[in-house]
Structure formats: C-alpha cells, structure tokens
C-alpha cells in the first residue's frame, strides 16, 4: 500500500473531498433539525452519500499524481458496495416502519 497523507492529495481530489464533507454536513443538519420522519430518513441517505463519495475519492489517492498504482483501490469499492447494500436495506426498513406508523395513526381506534 502506498502511504499518502491527506495533505498530498491533488487540488481536484480536495475539491471532491470538500463536496463529500458538505454532503455529510447537510445530512447531519437535516437529521438534527428536520421534524418530519421522512425528512430525517432522507437526511440519513444524504449522509451516507457523502461518506460513499469520500470513499470513492479516497480510492483514487496516488493516481492523480500520475504515479503509484495503476488502478483505483479495490478495497474501498468493496466497502462501498457493502455499505450501499446496508444503506438500501436500512432505508427500506425505515420506510416500511414509517408506513406502518402512518397506518396506525390513520386507523379510527387511535384517533382521540
């Protein structure tokens, strides 16, 4: 593995990393502030998009300098795939729970 600290990244990659950080920050803001549950679920998705973007960018460390490895880091791609599967199933589960919550609230016996 080539050792590269964050400071050696090219400006282009730094821009991508800043974008990923912005996505993460937007998601965290939405998650903490958003009163509706659906909005919070979407905020979680934005957070994970930010993290996956960071991972994609990190996979290209060393390539941008025109040296080191010939292909992007495959381990990170594997991690992203796993992370995506987890994120999709968790979102589906959250939406299903939300759907059931709405159903129970709408049914007559629960109305005050």
């Amino acid at each position, binding site marked *: *593995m*080539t*050792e590269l*600290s*964050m400071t050696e990244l090219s400006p282009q990659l730094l821009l991508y990393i800043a974008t990923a950080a912005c996505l*993460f920050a937007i998601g965290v803001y939405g*998650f903490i502030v958003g009163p509706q*549950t659906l909005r*919070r*679920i979407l905020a*979680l998705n934005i*957070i*994970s998009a*930010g*993290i996956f973007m*960071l*991972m994609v960018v*990190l996979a290209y*460390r060393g390539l941008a300098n025109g040296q080191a490895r010939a292909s992007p*880091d495959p*381990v*990170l791609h594997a*991690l992203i795939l*796993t*992370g995506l599967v*987890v994120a999709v*199933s*968790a979102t589906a*589960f*959250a939406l299903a*729970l*939300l759907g*059931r*919550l709405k159903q*129970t609230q709408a049914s007559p016996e*629960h109305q005050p």
Partner: protein
Amino acid sequence: MMVLLLVLPLLGALLMLLWPKVAPLLTLLTAAVCSLVALQLVSRVSEQGSLQILLAGWPSGLAISLEANSLSSLLILLTTVLQLLVALYAVATYRRDKLGAGFWPLSSLLQLGLTALWLSRDLFNLYVCLELLGIAAVALVSLSGDKAIKPALNYLLLSLFGSLCYLLGVAMLYGAYGVLDISALALQWQANLLSSAALVLMTLGLMLKAALWPLHAWLPAAHAAAPAPVSALLSALVVKGPLFILCLLWLQLAATTQAQAMAPLFSFCGLAALLLGGIAALRTPLAKNMVAYSTVAQLGYATLALGLLLQFNQPLFAAALWLFVLAHALAKAACFLAIGEMTATLGGKRLNTLKGASQTMPLAMFAFAVAGGSLIGLPPSGGFLAKWALLQGLWLQGDQLLYLLAIVVVTLLSAAYVFRVVALAFDRAKPVKPDFAPHIVPQWLALLPALAVWAMTLYSEPLLRLLKQEGL
C-alpha cells in the same frame, strides 16, 4: 469451531423462515448446540490461548479474520446461554403474550450479529455487525405491535445515524493508513488531528448506539416498548456490542496522549449516567421503564471503568469493566423476565401493579430481588465482584476520594430504586389480584440468571485473573 458458531444461527434463521411451524424448536436447538460449542471454545481458549482463523483460506490482510481470545469466548458463551434461556421463556409464554412468529428468526439473527461482533477484529466488519445487530434489534422491538412502532422507528434512525458516524471514522482512518485490521492499524497509529477526529466521530456514533449518557434518550422508550423476552435480550446483550467496539478502539488503537485526554470525559459521562439514570429510575411510575433506566445507570459503571482504565492503566479496572458487563447482562435478563412475567400476570404496566407481589407471585419477585441485589452490588454477587474490583483499583491509586464518595452515592441510589419495588411487593394489605393463575415455569426461568449472577462469585478468582490479563 468459530465458523460453526456463526453458521448455525444463520442456517437456523433461514430454516425458520422456510418452516415457521417448527421455528421455536429450531431456535431452542440452535441455541443449545451453540451454547455447547461456546463452552468448548471457552475451555479450548483458556488452555491454548487465543485462536485466530482466516476465512476461506485467503492470505492475511485480504481475508476476513476472526479472533477468539478469552474475553470474546466468554462473551459468546454469555450470548448463547442467554439466548437459550430467553428462547425457553418465549416458548413458555408465546401463546399468552402473542409474541409473533418474527421473534424466532430475528432472535437467531441477533445472536449471529453478536457472535460475529465479539469475534471480529476489523473496523469494517465491526460496522457490518453493528448494522446487523441494530436492524435485528429494531425489528424485535417493533414486534410488540402498534404502540412500539414509534419508539422502534426512533431507535432505528438514531442507530443508523450512529453507524454512519462510525463509518465516516472508518473511511477517514482507511484513507490515512490503508488498513482496516485493528492490530495492523495499531502498529502504524499516529496521534494527529486526523486520527483524533476519526476517533471522536466513531466514539460519538458508538456512544449513541450503546446508549451511554448523554446519548441515551432513546433507550428507555425502546426497551420498555419491546416484549419482555426482547427487552431482556436488548438490555442484557445488544447495548454491550457497541461498548465492546468502543473499548477495542480506545484500548488498542488510541495513543496514550489521546486516551489520557478522553479519559476524564468517559469518567464524567459514567458518573452522570449513574446519577441521572438512577434518579430517573427512582421517579418513573412504569415498571419496565424503571428497569430500562436502571440499564442506563448501570452502563455508567462500565463507562466509568473504561475512563479510569484509560487514565490509570490499572488492570483491575479492565476486570471491573468486563465483570460489570457480565454481571449486568445476567441480572438485567432476570429483571426484565421477572417484571415482564409479573406485569403480564397482574395486568398493568405501572409499578403500583406490583403491590403485594411477594404474596401473589413470590418466585418472580424473588428473582427480581436477587437480581436487584447484584445491581446494587450486595456481596456475594457478580455486581459486588465488579464493584469491589473498581473500588480496589481506586484505592490502590490513592487520593481518589471524590470517586469513592460518588460510588457510595450511586450505590445508595440503585438500592433505593430496587427497594422501592421490593417494598411495594411486601405491602400485603391489599395485594393486586392476578388475572389468572401465575405460571410457574417462566418464573423459574427468570430466577435462573439471577442465581447465575450470584454463582459468579464461586468462579471469582479465575474470572478476575482472566479479565485482568486480557482486558482486551
């Protein structure tokens, strides 16, 4: 052997989905076989030292590696035995309590997630285990019907948020060092801004998932809403998973300067949890909420022990930390099963329902009182062992009067909330009539872990020796 421990619950869960009719039987069978295998693993690890395997024969660094040291094997044994016990309780009560067919495969998946978590030594695998654990736990909470959906959804969202914070930390560390394996990462570790930021992010995520003060607010609602066997599993085992990862991070990865900086914070959070959790447990009018708040408080002991361990690097604190985890798991399982049994039979959620329970349901009340004794730390129970190790460590450090005083106060507080229930139960003037004749078998099942936590003292010496040297 380790692979068997992982494959069996997974296979069991799949078969349960195929044949729902034999699901209870299958759950019992998997849990029983896994308990035996775990027992064998414990004896093998204690003889030969820690075992490590690389899955599918890939070279190290690429393969998923599993490692069982004596602490992991003990925790696996605890998990499988409690799973077996809770499954027995669920078999005894599921017709009455309308548990739902989902319980059986989900509890097996929960066991799988926990076992994998105790065995993993790789940051990303730990993330996957955390998610598996979280989703299975939320699904189990939502089993108890419409009222549980809201707390379950809240639990899910916070748990996902916690895991994402953890994942961001993992991505940052991988970006900086290019490895995920904890021991390999520890070799290259540098104390700089990036690694500190990653550690703080992961710690926040894990504290949220482990319900450590001040991120505990979701726990009482979720644990109280779940059906009794599920609450027992959640309080006894699930919150310990993230705690285990937290200890791995801070004890194996963090540099001494980072650990020293974080230690007072952990100690403070621990003490605050003990104090505020105890007060909340004393004030709540609902029986299950009281036990859930007591979980928040008791987790404070583990946080406090972790903080002191990081600060003083004294092996006694490591022993105290893991003894708390073991003793609390057994005692809390007993508490939740006993309270669940009493509230189901006496027909009410409030603590007042337990009035005169020493007369109407003496066995379940005895189980609660015995387990409560361990929560307070009365000798000779597991809770006492843990507290003794903590006090001894503090005493050896010298000049820690403030901590000693705080521990006395919170012990009195835990005694207050346990005796609040016991006093109500002995109020025999107008006992609450049970809705139906109390069942004997579930009450005995609630009593078993309570007796086990007192039996821990019989093995106190090997336990202390093992946990002191292991300490992670």
